[in-house]
């Protein structure tokens, strides 16, 4: 089996944005994504992990990762998320190089 170059986009954002972000990802042509509940601290304020009772659950953060088989789609997802979500809400986006087997599974437009 051979490994093929691909791109991963990681988005860390408030939980309440996750639906919107997933719609952006779906629209980009990516074939899937993975979501993990997270906590953390950023420029604005501290977010608790989902383990501890927190009166405002929606302010917890999630970490979403998407692997796509080309750079353009990855950058496009990143751009869209920053434009549509991160002008007003907290969050970060970054890209990484990865290698995948079966690149067909990771479609991009």
């Amino acid at each position: 089996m051979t490994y093929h170059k691909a791109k991963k986009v990681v988005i860390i954002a408030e939980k309440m944005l996750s639906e919107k972000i997933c719609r952006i990802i779906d629209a980009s042509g990516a074939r899937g994504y993975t979501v993990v509940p997270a906590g953390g601290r950023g420029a604005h304020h501290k977010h608790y992990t989902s383990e501890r009772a927190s009166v405002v659950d929606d302010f917890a953060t999630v970490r979403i990762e998407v692997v796509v088989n080309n750079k353009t789609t990855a950058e496009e997802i990143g751009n869209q998320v920053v434009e549509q979500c991160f002008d007003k809400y907290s969050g970060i986006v970054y890209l990484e190089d990865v290698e995948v087997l079966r690149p067909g599974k990771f479609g991009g437009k």
Partner: protein
Amino acid sequence: MDFLADFFIRFLVQFQSPTLGFLIGGMLIAALGSKLKIPNPIYQFVVFMLLMKIGLNGGIEIREANLFAMALPAFFSILIGLAIVRVGIAIFGLLPGVNSADGFATAGLFGAVSASTLAVAIVMLEEEAIAFEAWAPALYPFMDIPALILAIVMANIHMKKEENGGGEVDVNVWGIVKESLRGSALSALLLGLALGLFTNSGSVLESFYEPLFRGFLSILMLIMGMEAYDRIKELRSVAHWYAIYAGFAPLLHGLIAFGLGYIAHLLVGFSPGGVIILSVIASSNSDISGPPTLRAGIPSANPSSYIGASTSVGTPVAIAVAIPLFIALAQIVFDI
């Protein structure tokens, strides 16, 4: 003078209530750095249990109630919710160093309603054996939703004006109503009401939701206490005005409601217990569904300012000061 002495005695007695004890205990152990934590799933379940119980109870008893009697208090609830927001925005507009978006959001949060404060009031009234209309807790959404809508609409109009000198503002009002009703707290309350109304849920209420109510409330108070302390740090990072507002607003709002409740008492026989519930609803500020709705509706507001003020100051004041205060006031005013 007699009034005041009487009042203080009644007031102090309520500090021995285990409910307040758990609230203060929670603050204390958080302050002492305890690692005790109530897991988040338990917290969510506790909130569900409390609201389901309040809902079921209301639903079952509403069957026999004369719902016309609800019209005036419901109308007053809407009025109070709107008034609190307008007054709050006016106050924050006068204060120096307050970001306007933050002011709108804080005013909205204090106009909205806290399910946990409501639950405490219900227990306290039961302890004091003061009756209230079964539908009184159902006044909650009548005050909550208009307050949130008004705050968000006014904030958006204001933002638009600043950006482009006014013009069309379109705020999705129906969207806010839907989002409020869909929030976990109101959903549970309304589901409980419906189940109480339409099914024979008396036995499950009596065998399960009812006996666990006070215990789960004690756990909720512990959590609220710990959160109140934890959020103080956040509150410190914003202007002091939020804390000051959060300290006196619950009492002011409760008094407005007490006055209108008294009028409803005279006009349509609204019960003294109902007047207390109305006052507590007004003095409470939303802790569960309000913040996410405001976060979505006024994204430029900094959650630290409004959540800090509400959780660290507003809610403790509403629970520990406003509830005993309005009970004592009603006991004297209505001579009960």
